[in-house]
C-alpha cells in the first residue's frame, strides 16, 4: 500500500517537473488555428526566441501524414497529395519539388520535430491549397477567406462611469445590444475576432470583457454600478472603425435615462470620458469646441526590424520606448481620464510619416515621440527634449499656403473653402506651442531624472514635420552610457520617466485650459 503511495507520489513529482520544464521553455503559449470548421489550439515552443510548433501536433491538427526519414536525416510531411521534405539544420524545405525558405531551420528536440510557425504559412498552406494568414501578436492562424477583424479594446474608468473603446480594423459596422447583465458587441460579417482585451481594474461598471459564444461578438459583463450605456462610432482613419461604449452609473444629480435604455448613437466623434480630478469643472472637458487637451498620442520610437540604437549591454531602444509609452498611457488614462493612443501597441515596424499621420487622424492635442539616445562618447548622459527646427524656406512656404484657401464643391450644392496644409510645413504653425510644451516637459523631467547639458534643442526630426498639433520628441536618456542603459532597462527608472512625462502633460493641459499662451 505504502509502496503504491510512494510510486504515485514519484509519478506525480515527475509529471509536475516535466510540466514545469515545459512551461519554462514556452510559458503555456498556444497558437490558435481558425478555419471554417472551427477553432483549434496547438502548443507553441520557443526556440532561440522564435515560435516553433511540433510536427506531430501539425499532423493531428491538419490531418497530414508525418514520416521520419532517418536515412536522409530529415522528415517528410504529406499533405493533400504533396510531399514536403525537411532536413535538420536546413532553413530551406522542398514543397512538391519547389524550394521554400523558412526564417530558421527545423530542429529535433527529444525525438520530436519542431518547425518555425512560418512553416504553416509558407509550406503547409501551399501544399494543402489553402491560404493562411498568421497574426503574430495574437498567435492566430487564419485559414482561407475567413473574415477575422483585429479588435483592440481599452477601458478607462472614473467615479462617474467607464468607457470601453474598440478599435476595429479593417473598418466594419459594429452594433451594441444589451442583454441580461451584459452588453453584446457584434462586428458585422466577422467569422471570428482577433481581439486584444485589457485587464479589468476594480470598479463597479465593467466586470469583464471577453469573446462571446457567437462568432464575431464580444461581451461586456456589466457591474453593480452600471445603469445605462451610450454607444457611438467614428472612423479615426480609412482602415479602422472606433466603437466607443460609455457605461454610466445610476442616480446622477440630474435626470438620467431609464436604466438599460440605449440612446441612439448620434455624434460621429466619441465623447471623451469625464476627467476625475485636476480641479476643473467637468464641463470644460466635455464642451465640444472649447480649448482643451482631450487626446494624447504617444509614439514609442522605432520598432520591428528597426531596432533603434543598442546599449553596450544589448538593451534595444525599441523595447525601452514601448515600455515607457505603456506606463505613461496607464498613468494618463487612469489619472487624467484623457484618450491616449500609442502609434504602435507592439513590436512592429512603422514609418515615421505613418506615426505622424496616426496622431493627425486621431486629432491628438499633444504628440509625444519617445526615444532613447546614443552618442559617440560613453560618458554622455541625461534626458533631452526636441522640437522641430524650421528653415526660412519652409516658414515662407507655409505662409504662402496659409494665405489662400482652396474652394471645393460642397455636398448639396454651393462651395466651401478648406485650408490645405502641406505635410512639409504642417508643424510650422504649432512651433510656438511645441516650444512651450518642450519647456514644460524639460521642467518636469529635470525634477525626476538627470538632464543632458543640452536639455532643450531644436532639430529637423522627420517624425515632427507633419504633425498638426504641439509635438515634441523626448530622449529619455543615453543607452550608449552603460550606467544609464541599466537604468533605462529597469522598471523603476521607466516609471520615473513616465511619471515625469505625466506631470508634463498634466501641467501643459492646465496651462492650455487656463488659456494662457495658446493660439
Amino acid at each position: 500500500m505504502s509502496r503504491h503511495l510512494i510510486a504515485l507520489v514519484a509519478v506525480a513529482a515527475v509529471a509536475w517537473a516535466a510540466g514545469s520544464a515545459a512551461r519554462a521553455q514556452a510559458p503555456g503559449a498556444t497558437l490558435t488555428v481558425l478555419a471554417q470548421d472551427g477553432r483549434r489550439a496547438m502548443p507553441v515552443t520557443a526556440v532561440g526566441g522564435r515560435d516553433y510548433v511540433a510536427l506531430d501536433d501539425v499532423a493531428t491538427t491538419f490531418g497530414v501524414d508525418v514520416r521520419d526519414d532517418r536515412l536522409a536525416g530529415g522528415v517528410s510531411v504529406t499533405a493533400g497529395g504533396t510531399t514536403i521534405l525537411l532536413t535538420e539544420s536546413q532553413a530551406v524545405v522542398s514543397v512538391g519539388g519547389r524550394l521554400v525558405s523558412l526564417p530558421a531551420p527545423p530542429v529535433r528536440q527529444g525525438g520530436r520535430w519542431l518547425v518555425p510557425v512560418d512553416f504553416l504559412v509558407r509550406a503547409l498552406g501551399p501544399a494543402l491549397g489553402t491560404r493562411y494568414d498568421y497574426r503574430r501578436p495574437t498567435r492566430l492562424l487564419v485559414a482561407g477567406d475567413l473574415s477575422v477583424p483585429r479588435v483592440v479594446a481599452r477601458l478607462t474608468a472614473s467615479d462617474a462611469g467607464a468607457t470601453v473603446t474598440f478599435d476595429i480594423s479593417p473598418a466594419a459596422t459594429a452594433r451594441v445590444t444589451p442583454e441580461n447583465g451584459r452588453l453584446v458587441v457584434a462586428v458585422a460579417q466577422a467569422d471570428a475576432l482577433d481581439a486584444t482585451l485589457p485587464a479589468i481594474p476594480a470598479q463597479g461598471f465593467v466586470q469583464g470583457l471577453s469573446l462571446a459564444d457567437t462568432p464575431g461578438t464580444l461581451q461586456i459583463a456589466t457591474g453593480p454600478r452600471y445603469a445605462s450605456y451610450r454607444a457611438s462610432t467614428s472612423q479615426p482613419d480609412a482602415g479602422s472603425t472606433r466603437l466607443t461604449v460609455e457605461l454610466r452609473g445610476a442616480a446622477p444629480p440630474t435626470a438620467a435615462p431609464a436604466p438599460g435604455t440605449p440612446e441612439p448613437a448620434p455624434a460621429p466623434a466619441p465623447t471623451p470620458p469625464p476627467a476625475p480630478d485636476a480641479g476643473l469643472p467637468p464641463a470644460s472637458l466635455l464642451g465640444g469646441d472649447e480649448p482643451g487637451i482631450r487626446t494624447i498620442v504617444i509614439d514609442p520610437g522605432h520598432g520591428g526590424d528597426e531596432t533603434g540604437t543598442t546599449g553596450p549591454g544589448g538593451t534595444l531602444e525599441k523595447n525601452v520606448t514601448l515600455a515607457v509609452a505603456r506606463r505613461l498611457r496607464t498613468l494618463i488614462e487612469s489619472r487624467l481620464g484623457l484618450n491616449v493612443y500609442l502609434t504602435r501597441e507592439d513590436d512592429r515596424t512603422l514609418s515615421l510619416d505613418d506615426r505622424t499621420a496616426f496622431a493627425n487622424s486621431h486629432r491628438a492635442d499633444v504628440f509625444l515621440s519617445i526615444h532613447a539616445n546614443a552618442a559617440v562618447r560613453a560618458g554622455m548622459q541625461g534626458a533631452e527634449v526636441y522640437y522641430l527646427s524650421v528653415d526660412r524656406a519652409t516658414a515662407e512656404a507655409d505662409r504662402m499656403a496659409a494665405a489662400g484657401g482652396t474652394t471645393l464643391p460642397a455636398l448639396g450644392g454651393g462651395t466651401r473653402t478648406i485650408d490645405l496644409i502641406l505635410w512639409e510645413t504642417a508643424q510650422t504653425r504649432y512651433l510656438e506651442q511645441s516650444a512651450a510644451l518642450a519647456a514644460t516637459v524639460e521642467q518636469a523631467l529635470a525634477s525626476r531624472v538627470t538632464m543632458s547639458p543640452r536639455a532643450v534643442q531644436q532639430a529637423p526630426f522627420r517624425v515632427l514635420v507633419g504633425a498638426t498639433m504641439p509635438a515634441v520628441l523626448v530622449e529619455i536618456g543615453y543607452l550608449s552610457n552603460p550606467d544609464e542603459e541599466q537604468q533605462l532597462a529597469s522598471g523603476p527608472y521607466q516609471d520615473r520617466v513616465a511619471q515625469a512625462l505625466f506631470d508634463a502633460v498634466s501641467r501643459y493641459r492646465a496651462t492650455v485650459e487656463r488659456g494662457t499662451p495658446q493660439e
Partner: protein
Amino acid sequence: MTTRRLLTFVAIAVAATALGWALMAGLSRVLTTTVPDELPPEGQTAAAPPAPGDPSAVPRIKATLFFGSGDGHQLVGVEHEVPLGDSVVAQARAILEAQLATAPPDGLARTIPEGTALRGVYASERGEVFIDLDGAIRAAHPGGSMNELVTVYTLVDAVTVNLPTVTDVQILIDGREVDTLAGHVDLRRPLQKNEELIAR
C-alpha cells in the same frame, strides 16, 4: 554758353560710359558666381583628383574638418590640408573625402562610421549640393538622435563652413533620396549649416 554745353555733353558721355562699364563688370561678376551652378551634374569627372602618383604637385588648401567633442554632443573643427579643387563640386568632394578618411585627433571622436564611402557629389542648378553616400553607412551607424545629428551635420557643416557660397546640402544614400539615416533627422530636403552644434 557753348563751352558749358560742351562740358555738360562730355559729363553725360563720361557718366554713360561709366554706367555701361559698371553694368558689364557687375554682370560678369554675377555670371562668375553662378558658374558652380552650371556645372554638369556628374561631379565625379569634374572632381577627379589630379596625378595620384605625385601628391606634392597638387596645390593644397586648408579646410576645416569636424569631429565629435570629448563629451560627444558637439562638433569640433580641426584644420586639415586638402587638395585644391577646380570647382565648388570638386572642392566639396575633396573636403568630404578628407573628412571620411581622416582619423580623429586625440581626444576627439569619429562622427561618421569608419569605412563610409562617398559615391558622388553633385550640384543642382539652384546651387544645392548633394552628397551621395554608400548604403553601408546605414548598417554601420549606431543610431540614436545625438549620433545621427553629429553624423549628418559633420557632412553638412564640412561643406557649408568651407564653401560659403553653398547654403543647402542634401544627403542621398545609394543615389536616392531617403527619409532619414537612422530614424530621426529629415533627409528629404536640403539642410543648412548648423552652428549650434559647433563647439566655440
